[in-house]
């Protein structure tokens, strides 16, 4: 029995709805939920914590059905994007708010708060009112307030997205450290890939009130099960047919482009293959090294620059292949539109989804 489980959850609030969401994860796991605006992510959170009662479906925590428990009995913490600090209390009292219920000893509360403040670097602002704090400080206070009562599960709704990039970066690092030290189970809604890379063990991707894919970070990134998810995680999905093979590798025909893969599939089967752009190698000349496999000649159709990277779009026959190179590689390879290059991809990176 898993630590936390949502079973076939339905709710319809008009604008937002959940249409049969199931999720499960283990103690200490960090799950990020991604999805476009309106996919139902926040509603899912508010159903899990009990602000809404699902029309159908159950929520289990530590093996117990908590669907009918009021929020104050669930011991699930929440951190919102807008921090939701109580404006009429100072930082200390905000953090103390939940502790008062569980710890009647004033001195021990004080110790816990000071420890928490120390670990999240807010000791110097304990006696300030929330309205006088910066976004990053407010978010650290909100996080302290949620963590200090030792919740069984922590929910975070885009906790970093209202921060400026620099603060987001440092807060994320602090968040990762705080989570690692506590062995806490987290469900974190985000739009930011960097959050996923830095924090997540598992990823769930939602669309239109449903979970499209829910798996480990590696699996979702490398084997997105459809193009919607592939777009989300920056991969490309192709449809192909499995050809008879000789060397034990699986040969896949993608509209005339034949790639070999270390994954397994039955001959004749119609399958989907995912490629990640960073796994495509680009060469000026056909590589003569025999260890290089899956060599394809392709024309550069288009490219754009983003930061220090160039996103390239090659075409080989009917197939459009995205790739990504650093700007120095781009110039070394002398890449230009409509010029031919050679691409290669390691069979281990040709993944059947």
């Amino acid at each position: 029995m898993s630590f936390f489980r949502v079973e076939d959850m339905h709710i319809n609030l008009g604008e937002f709805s959940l249409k049969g969401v199931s999720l499960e994860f283990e103690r200490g796991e960090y799950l990020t939920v991604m999805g476009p605006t309106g996919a139902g992510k926040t509603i899912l959170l508010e159903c899990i914590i009990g602000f809404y009662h699902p029309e159908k479906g159950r929520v289990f925590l530590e093996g117990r059905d908590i669907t009918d428990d009021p929020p104050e009995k669930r011991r699930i913490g929440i951190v919102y994007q807008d921090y939701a600090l109580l404006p009429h209390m100072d930082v200390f009292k905000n953090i103390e708010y939940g502790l008062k219920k569980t710890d009647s000893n004033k001195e021990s509360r004080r110790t816990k708060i000071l420890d928490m403040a120390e670990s999240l670097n807010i000791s110097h602002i304990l006696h300030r009112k929330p309205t006088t704090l910066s976004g990053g400080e407010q978010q650290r206070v909100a996080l302290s307030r949620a963590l200090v009562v030792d919740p069984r599960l922590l929910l975070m709704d885009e906790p970093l997205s209202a921060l400026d990039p620099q603060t987001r970066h440092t807060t994320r690092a602090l968040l990762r450290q705080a989570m690692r030290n506590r062995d806490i189970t987290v469900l974190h809604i985000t739009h930011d890939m960097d959050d996923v890379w830095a924090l997540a063990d598992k990823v769930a991707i939602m669309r239109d009130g449903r979970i499209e894919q829910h798996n480990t970070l590696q699996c979702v990134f490398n084997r997105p099960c459809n193009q919607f998810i592939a777009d989300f995680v920056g991969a490309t999905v192709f449809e192909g047919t499995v050809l008879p093979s000789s060397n034990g590798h699986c040969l896949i025909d993608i509209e005339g482009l034949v790639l070999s893969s270390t994954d397994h599939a039955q001959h004749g089967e119609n399958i989907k293959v995912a490629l990640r752009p960073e796994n495509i190698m680009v060469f000026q000349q056909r590589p003569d090294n025999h260890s290089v496999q899956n060599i394809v000649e392709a024309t550069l159709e288009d490219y754009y620059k983003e930061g220090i990277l160039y996103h390239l779009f090659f075409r080989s026959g009917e197939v459009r292949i995205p790739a990504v190179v650093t700007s120095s590689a781009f110039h070394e390879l002398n890449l230009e539109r409509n010029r031919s290059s050679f691409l290669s991809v390691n069979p281990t990176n040709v993944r059947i989804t």
Partner: protein
Amino acid sequence: MTTSTLRKSRFRGVLSSARGLSGLAFYGWMILSAALVLLFIFGPLASVIAAPTWERMYETLIDAQVIASIRLSLVTAGTASAVALILGTPLAYLLARNDFPGKRVVESLIDLPIMIPHPVVGIALLSLAGRNHWFGEFIQSIGIELMGTTTGIICVLVFVGMPFYVNTAKAGFESVSPRLENVSRSLGAGPGATFFRVTLPLTWRHVLVGMIMCMARALSEFGAVVIVAYHPMIAPVLMYERFTAYGLSWSQPVAVLLILVSMTFFLVLRIISNPSGSKR
């Protein structure tokens, strides 16, 4: 920004952009209309206040009947706004936090006392609480009489003042993000604790302003009160009686007194509810 740069120009607003012929014409019209409205409110009040002689004012000040009526006015209006606080707060909170079919109907029902003619309010209350109605019989059997009593006056004032309290308090509750309550619940506080530790402390200004509005409305009520209780006399009824029995010059000093007492009272409450003149 330092305060000194803010203080340099005390006047800030759209008028500072009044330039050119069309701008001057437009803002000229606006300023003239605004001045006219202010004069219209201030003029009659000023003339009432200026009318009585000092001698007449002094006589009024030591007139026990006048003092009693003003005290009764303040006490009944104050009680009405306290009743509105106790009974109206849950309604305001429920309306602010829930959506349900028929919410619009409930909201317009609350506004109804503002619209109906004042004597109708009195008549309606009497017809429910009179001897010809089972409810009237019932409350009289437990010793509650509305006709000609202070209880009756308070009843009327609660009726006419309630919309002002409920609407203001509701606006206050709506201004508190439900997320604050959610967070409080997630931290182990039940709905009651959340209301008293989070929601109410954040809306006390709205609640106080609502009580002020309710009390102000109650202080000014005449038409409904005069039907339910001519005696004991509240200040507006006494003024009316002095006006019909002795004429204008005898009702003016009572009016001045009532205006002064209420203005002082409301000014103090306004200052409490909105310190430092912030824009909220």
